[in-house]
């Protein structure tokens, strides 16, 4: 029956029997095959926004939403502070664009930023219509707050759980669309490409341990960042750069990967994020002498300076001996006491909850110990303004993509909006692409999926002398020593060498668990492979950029060098190691200037 609907030549498959499931076999094992029109990888903010955009624009289609976790577990859930858009009379699109570009140290593409600021407000209002409980003014309008690097108050927020509320509003809204077909806890490990076009993904069904081919006319990657290449990060354990790695392995370039954002205020030890909104609402950063030390670094912005500069300022305070010493390294104080209990409970209840739980103090009465912590990857899969990559049919949006609006340093509260704006755009672009193409030939795709199944089968319970946790730890430490807030040639070289060794040792990985059902050791091994790929790209691009720009700060090249480096780095996979080239930055109306706050 299903076969008949597929047609003799396999063409026109997707729309005619979309949503069908089929089983074939290889080497005595099952290969499940599902047919959809568009395949999403990742079910966070960008992915769910894309999914809804697709079914709204193309009601006959079905979208497969393939995610290694249930969508409401996605890391968007941890975003706290807010989402930026121009909605007030005292604001303008040009101002938001300028703030974003200045924040990016002029590495963002200006045409993309202009598109972004234009569509931002529409998307936040759309989320409001979908039930997001934005905090309100007494007159019923959505409230705005200050955020770092923004010249006016333009950040919408839902107390200090904005990402959580946005994700749940999106997820709950997605439930009303039966044509969004979820593959929860399916781990995508490979893109299926035939005839120069992506036609689906191979995914491990974590529950059964079986390989699954999810076929479609277009694939949208929305898997988020890769903070877990570092040991000390705000990122959830699932942030292993999966989407970046599978695109990279499919030959698609990753862009601007040397730019890793350190958030100034994470809790020592755990790395749990204390939102920038705590400074937006008036919190102070104090050194061990009780001084608001930012007056010496960003005197005009103080606590509302951009993240890269404040993180550097904190590290300089540490180096100057003006930081506190604790069990998990040095830290400074984030002081909220003067805000008062009422304001903290109203605007920053989650901060209070987190600090009470995980530090054991009450920020109403005591300052919070904080230190810079890896937070966000500015870089990602190289896409255009529609989220399209250079591989026909492949799109990306959210943190996994570099469109790029973030350049060398992202401004706080631009990323949640980015998920929405570019999630929608990627969804619409995928619809347009899918309508103009066919389903391709199924045979080669299934062969690739079977080969991928065999690769994973060989990894499951394989003997070897290396341990996952050991390699992960060594990778983490190498990245911290070479690619931290301040970087230097010899340290980065050492990191690159260590990573190359780790890649070799990865081949000798030993796994203890040979079972199929919910084998999380196998998932961890696959994630480790992705992490090492991403780490190598970050370290190699960082080494090659001999200047300081945004979050990429080199002690040996302390200045920004526009003549040589006002350009995007791009890295492609090659068996011998990452292959690097550069593309120009699009400048429209704003000439790069000295970045001073």
């Amino acid at each position, binding site marked *: 029956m299903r076969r008949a609907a597929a047609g003799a030549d396999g063409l026109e498959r997707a729309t005619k029997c979309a949503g069908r499931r089929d089983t074939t076999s290889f080497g005595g094992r099952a290969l499940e095959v*599902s047919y959809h029109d568009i395949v999403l990888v990742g079910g966070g903010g960008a992915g769910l926004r894309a999914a809804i955009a697709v079914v709204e624009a193309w009601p006959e289609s079905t979208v497969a939403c393939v995610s290694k976790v249930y969508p409401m577990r996605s890391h968007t859930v941890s975003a706290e502070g807010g989402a930026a858009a121009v909605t007030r009379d005292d604001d303008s699109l040009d101002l938001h664009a300028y703030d974003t570009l200045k924040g990016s140290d002029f590495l963002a593409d200006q045409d993309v930023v202009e598109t972004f600021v234009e569509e931002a407000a529409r998307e936040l209002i759309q989320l409001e219509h979908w039930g997001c409980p934005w905090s309100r003014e007494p007159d019923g309008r959505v409230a705005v707050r200050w955020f770092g690097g923004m010249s006016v108050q333009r950040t919408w927020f839902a107390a200090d759980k904005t990402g959580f509320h946005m994700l749940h509003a999106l997820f709950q809204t997605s439930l009303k669309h*039966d044509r*969004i*077909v*979820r593959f*929860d806890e399916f781990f995508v490990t490979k893109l299926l490409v035939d005839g120069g076009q992506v036609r689906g993904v191979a995914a491990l069904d974590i529950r*059964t341990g079986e390989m699954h081919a999810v076929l479609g006319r277009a694939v949208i990657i929305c898997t988020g960042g890769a903070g877990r290449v570092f040991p000390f990060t705000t990122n959830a354990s699932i942030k292993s750069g999966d989407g970046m790695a599978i695109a990279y392995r499919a030959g698609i370039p990753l862009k601007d990967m040397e730019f890793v954002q350190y958030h100034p205020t994470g809790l020592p030890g755990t790395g749990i994020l204390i939102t920038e909104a705590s400074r937006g609402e008036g919190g102070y950063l104090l050194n061990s002498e009780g001084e608001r030390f930012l007056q010496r670094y960003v005197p005009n912005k103080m606590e509302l300076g951009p993240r890269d500069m404040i993180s550097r300022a904190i590290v300089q305070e540490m180096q100057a001996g003006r930081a506190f010493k604790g069990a998990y390294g040095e830290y400074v104080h984030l002081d909220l006491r003067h805000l008062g209990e009422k304001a903290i409970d109203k605007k920053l209840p989650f901060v209070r909850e987190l600090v009470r739980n995980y530090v054991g103090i009450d920020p109403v009465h005591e300052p919070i110990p904080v230190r810079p912590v890896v937070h966000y990857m500015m870089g990602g899969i190289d896409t255009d303004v529609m989220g399209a990559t250079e591989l026909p049919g492949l799109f990306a949006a959210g943190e996994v993509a570099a469109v790029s609006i973030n350049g060398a340093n992202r401004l706080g509260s631009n990323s949640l909006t980015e998920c929405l704006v570019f999630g929608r755009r990627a969804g619409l672009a995928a619809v347009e692409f899918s309508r103009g193409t066919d389903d391709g030939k199924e045979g080669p795709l299934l062969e690739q999926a079977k080969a991928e199944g065999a690769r994973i089968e060989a990894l499951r319970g394989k003997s070897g002398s290396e341990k996952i946790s050991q390699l992960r730890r060594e990778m983490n430490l190498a990245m911290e020593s070479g690619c931290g807030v301040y970087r230097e040639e010899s340290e980065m070289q050492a990191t690159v060498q260590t990573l190359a060794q780790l890649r070799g040792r990865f081949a000798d990985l030993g796994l203890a668990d040979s079972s199929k059902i919910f084998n999380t050791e196998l998932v961890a091994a696959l994630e480790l492979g992705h992490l090492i790929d991403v780490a190598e790209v970050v370290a190699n691009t960082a080494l090659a950029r001999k200047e300081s720009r945004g979050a990429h700060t080199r002690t040996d090249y302390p200045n920004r060098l526009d003549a040589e480096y006002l350009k995007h780095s791009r890295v492609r996979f090659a068996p011998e190691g990452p292959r690097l080239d550069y593309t120009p930055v699009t400048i429209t109306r704003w000439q790069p200037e000295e970045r001073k706050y």
Partner: protein
Amino acid sequence: MTSRSTTPTWPAREPDGWWMGHPRYRNYVLFAATGFVLSAGCVVLLLGIRALGQGHAAWQAYLAHVGSLPGQLGCWLLLIGTLFFSLRWLWVGVKIPLVRLGIVPAPPEPVIWVAHFAGLFALTALVLLLLAGVIL
């Protein structure tokens, strides 16, 4: 819509130690068990009404039964059970009225608390006054 495979599972189990393994469980089980005490109390009162209908001697016998040691113990148990039931019900029930009903907004929480306990005391006082023969 989900596309989910299944695998053999181990069946769902009750929480360990349910129903007496934890103070909160015990509290709830006791609360539920007061239902038996309250039902028994109702039966005793119904028997009293029946005895009243059967004449003076039956009523005297009924009073004697209730006044005997086991009868008195039963009455104390009934009193304690009723109090426990009422107090727990108030404790969990006080949050129910904190709700917007149509166009009527949710009342402020202190109002509910005061109203709840004022209601309880007023009702108790009314019953006591009735029993004491002060009113009616």
